């Protein structure tokens, strides 16, 4: 091979590897953006409070509390990719737990109560889906309504009274849901990982999951190509409802008490996790990995801010900054490598 040819081959090789790199960055720009933000924040916290952030305890705390909303943010990602939204999950958490506490009180069977709770969440999700699909009403409006409705049902039935769950502490379910693996890792963290894997698999390795993307991207083309849009949306609403009920059990069992106000305060953290994770508000794009990482960013900010010596008043300001910077970074990366 002549030197000119060799040189051309080298240039072409460099061109190819650059193209390959650009291709990978473009393909994974959402994930790269969110991981970069997570690393930046962690570095900031680590420099600000090295003693706290070099010890296991702070990470144990994150793993204990972040799953409370990550468990809902992961399936909610599916719904937002499908260009729908659910604002009622915070009330469905409480509705599911209300069913749990009633069944537990009457049957004294924690497993029956747990099953009834999941079924209640599933039905509440299906109701949302049915109204959206059958009547074509925007899910934002429908689920705003059902958010009030289910909270109202809970308050009317319980008269605002909570219920103790100490009787569940000796059960296998308690250990399985909120116990500590090896006395260190909270079980809810394991569940968050399991749910993340299951939701990822559903979205990326099943036909229904592929249809979730299509419904969110171009619903007319999905219909034209034979996708059963109504069935896909109903299914995803049902999954979100059941996940909310599941999260409700996890949160309540952690504190061994069911408060009828359960779920209030989780709405913004959960939605922020989905959007910070790179899921488009218009549907059609988004990743489970992004939501997973973003949930832990959101979950770490409060404790991190206090640890570095700032007052808790800074929390929302930092939340806002991070969301705006992260979303901008993802957009710029995506355009740069398009």
């Amino acid at each position, binding site marked *: 091979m002549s030197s000119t040819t060799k040189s051309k081959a080298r240039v072409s090789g460099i061109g190819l590897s650059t193209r390959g790199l650009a291709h990978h960055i473009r393909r994974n720009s959402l994930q790269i953006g969110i991981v970069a933000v997570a690393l930046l924040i962690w570095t900031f916290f680590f420099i600000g409070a090295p003693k706290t952030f070099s010890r296991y305890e702070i990470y144990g705390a994150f793993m204990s509390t972040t799953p409370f909303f990550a468990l809902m943010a992961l399936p909610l990602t599916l719904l937002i990719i499908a260009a729908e939204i659910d604002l009622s999950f915070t009330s469905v958490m409480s509705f599911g737990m209300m069913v749990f506490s009633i069944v537990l009180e009457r049957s004294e069977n924690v497993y029956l109560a747990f099953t009834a709770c999941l079924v209640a969440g599933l039905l509440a999700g299906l109701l949302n889906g049915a109204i959206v699909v059958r009547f074509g009403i925007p899910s934002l409006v429908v689920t705003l309504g059902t958010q009030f409705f289910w909270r109202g049902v809970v308050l009317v039935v319980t008269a605002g009274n909570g219920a103790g769950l100490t009787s569940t502490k000796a059960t296998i379910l308690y250990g399985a849901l909120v116990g500590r693996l090896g006395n260190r890792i909270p079980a809810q963290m394991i569940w968050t990982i399991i749910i993340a894997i299951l939701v990822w698999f559903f979205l990326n390795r*099943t036909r229904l999951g592929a249809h979730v993307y299509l419904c969110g991207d171009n619903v007319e083309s999905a219909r034209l*190509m*034979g*996708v059963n849009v109504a069935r896909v949306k109903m299914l995803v609403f049902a999954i979100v409802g059941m996940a909310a009920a599941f999260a409700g059990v996890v949160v309540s069992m952690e504190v061994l008490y069911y408060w009828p106000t359960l779920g209030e305060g989780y709405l913004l953290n959960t939605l922020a996790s989905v959007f910070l994770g790179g899921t488009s508000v218009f549907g059609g794009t988004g990743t489970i990995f992004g939501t997973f990482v973003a949930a832990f960013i959101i979950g770490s900010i409060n404790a991190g801010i206090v640890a570095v010596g700032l007052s808790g008043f800074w929390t929302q300001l930092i939340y806002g900054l991070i969301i705006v910077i992260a979303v901008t970074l993802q957009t710029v990366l995506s355009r740069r490598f398009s």
Partner: protein
Amino acid sequence: MDDLLRLTNISKSFGEVRSLQQVNFHVGRNEIVGLLGDNGAGKSTLIKIITGYHQPDPGGEIYFKGQKIDRMTVTRARKLGIESVYQERALADQQSLWRNIFMGRELTNAFGVLDVRRMTQETEKLMTQLMGFTSTAVTPDSRVKHMSGGERQGVAITRALYFHAELLILDEPTMGLSLSETKKALDFVGEIKRAGKAGIFIDHNIFHVYPVADRIVVLDRGRIAGEFSKEQITLEELIAKLHHVAETGRLDEPQAA
């Protein structure tokens, strides 16, 4: 009669609006039918009935290869081999090329799990064999939104061919395309006939339809206003008749199907 598709007495109303009225329409085997008509003439409604997206009003009948189809659905139409090639509407912009090719008909393995690898490989083959993509910038993972009008058309056409369509419906395939891309799209319509398939070519532009169609059907205000085989009429005569139809809603001497 050796028809591939025959529709009889097809009407379709949306509330008070009557989009189609007593339409009789057929496509022969290995025939290209040009469907012409102004906006609101009922072209899209007719196509959506053929593809199972809309159901006709009671009384209308659909036959495919001589067999009566009691209820045409999108899935049924695709199983019969009726494929639509919409330029814009049938592609999901933010999704990859392979997801668009296999949209609604994703390949799975024996366990029902998406076979992403096989779909990517098949797409790569189709890109070189059918779509004529030579640029290394476009890969099976490339998003459709980054492609040109011609490339998008190629994706939609390739999808139809890959799934062995018997009747291809091209809904305004030249809309928004450059001159060279338009030629490519028109060449493809000729390919349908050479491949022994049948096609319905819908367009506003008579200069695009006339050269490639065997027969031309003119729709106006929900009715068949005229039907001509190419031997019967020259392009100039057809243009004159279309002007007349646009003005009066009828031909002076309606011709039988």
